[in-house]
């Protein structure tokens, strides 16, 4: 069991021109945890994800990861998004970004890209190692889809799936990259209560069975309170609170940020 947090973000700041979108944010995720990042709209949560995953290099601060089982931490600042995924951080997007004109299965197969080795020559000649690798990828993708519950639509085009299924497919695709930390950006957005419950179960299953830690951005408070081990709260780019669900629920700054005013005032 890793004592060092698998993700440690220190003093992260991000400037866009004159606008400071993130201001000295600290956050950490220990192995096996489900951590939530919450805050009002525009607080900088997705920007935070983008900084961690290499879409923008942060203006200040450090993003350190320590993959489970490894001793040394690696600095992730400015590393390209595809390298970040290779290192073991996978993400989903706030607005669904599936590969619409590919089948469900192929979407998940793409996730395996960075774990595969065949190149052009292998593709054309179809040597034994390539064939074996392809077969493994197909099998593994199917297994992932079974776990997610999408096994019966493997050959559908991703664009034809209903909304809830699309969200789950994004998660399946991210899982295919074999991450140790999964970053979910508003996975429950647009879901009805029943779907949200299923999502709750799914995320727990991912943590228990796949041994993947989770960092999620979410607005659905019921889901957040139910799932999270710890919660970080940001507002206007600054961290205003952190702690267990109970601690955060009763924190005055958090209430003020969401409701705009002290209830007792």
């Amino acid at each position, binding site marked *: 069991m890793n004592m060092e947090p698998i993700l440690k973000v220190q003093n992260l700041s991000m400037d866009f021109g004159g606008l400071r979108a993130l201001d000295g944010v600290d956050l950490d995720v220990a192995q096996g945890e489900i951590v939530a990042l919450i805050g009002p709209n525009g607080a900088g949560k*997705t920007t935070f994800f*983008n900084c961690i995953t290499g*879409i923008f290099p942060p203006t200040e601060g450090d993003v350190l990861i320590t993959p489970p089982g490894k001793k040394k931490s690696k600095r992730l600042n400015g590393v390209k998004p595809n390298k970040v995924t290779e290192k073991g951080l996978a993400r989903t*997007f706030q*607005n669904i970004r599936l590969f619409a004109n590919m089948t469900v299965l192929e979407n998940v197969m793409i996730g395996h890209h960075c774990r595969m080795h065949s190149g052009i020559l292998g593709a054309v000649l179809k040597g034994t190692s390539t064939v074996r690798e392809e077969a493994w990828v197909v099998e593994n993708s199917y297994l992932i889809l079974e776990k997610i519950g999408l096994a019966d639509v493997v050959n559908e085009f991703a664009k034809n799936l209903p909304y809830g299924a699309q969200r789950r497919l994004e998660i399946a695709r991210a899982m295919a990259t074999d991450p140790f930390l999964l970053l979910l950006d508003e996975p429950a957005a647009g879901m009805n209560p029943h779907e949200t419950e299923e999502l709750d179960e799914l995320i727990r299953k991912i943590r228990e069975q796949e041994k993947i830690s989770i960092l999620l951005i979410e607005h659905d408070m019921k889901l957040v309170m139910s799932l999270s081990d710890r919660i970080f709260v940001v507002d206007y780019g600054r961290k205003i609170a952190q702690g267990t669900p109970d601690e955060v629920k009763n924190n005055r700054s958090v209430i003020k940020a969401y409701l705009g005013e002290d209830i007792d005032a």
Partner: protein
Amino acid sequence: MDYFLELFLGGLTRGSIYALIALGYTMVYGIIELINFAHGEIYMIGAFTALIVISVLTLMGMNTIAILVIAGVIAVIYSSAYGYTVEKIAYKPLRNAPRLSALISAIGMSLFLQNYVLLAQTSDFLPFPNLIPDFEFMEPIAYIIGSTDLVILITTTIVMIGLTFLIKFTRIGKAMRATSQDKTMAMLTGVDVNRVISVTFIVGSATAAIGGVLIASHIGMINFYIGFIAGIKAFVAAVLGGIGSIPGAVLGSFVLGWTESFATGYVSSDYEDVFAFIFLVCILIFRPAGILGRSERHEV
């Protein structure tokens, strides 16, 4: 020194013509993010229409400068009509289609219009009379700049001023600016987006037509293919200046005009066209938004 001045003014004239055409490209791109490949053909049709009107009027025995003005007006009317129609047929149905489809449709329209004029008229080069009289006061400097050049420069300036006025101070201008920034939002605030788009095409076609008539007078020859070449150059100019930006189109046009003029004057006239493209490629690689363009950020 005189040579330099001649090249400078030559470049200015070139740039003016490119600007008149480039405006159409940039305005359309700004509004519907489409490279209107058929725009050069609108310019060509303007020139042809003018020639036809001039020929008819000449045969009826009218006097000179009035013919040019009438022909110009009619050319503008017709080019605008063509621009409007092309948009309705080939672009409107593809408003929500992927960009590649609209681009191919534009290419198809360009091809169609070129051959339409070719078949309906002729493949020969037709002489275009220069009806602009040589002004007496120009004589002393006629070896540096001719009367036609002067008319081109003055007309272009007037058009620029008119266009700026339209965009900045009229209601439709404001609607055009709004639509080019955010089409959906403009629609939600009550702007008739279809009408705005049509107006954009009409205005762009009109300026191109003016350019067509002027350059036809200047060069003295037209044929069905002139739209393609002028179109590409003007397009390069629009991109250079930042496609979607009206001042950018003007700036890019003059930069291109001067580059071509000085390069052919001092270096070599063989590689005239190459300069345009090399310039284009370099600018786009180092500053894709163009000189005055807005760099786009993507939402993640």
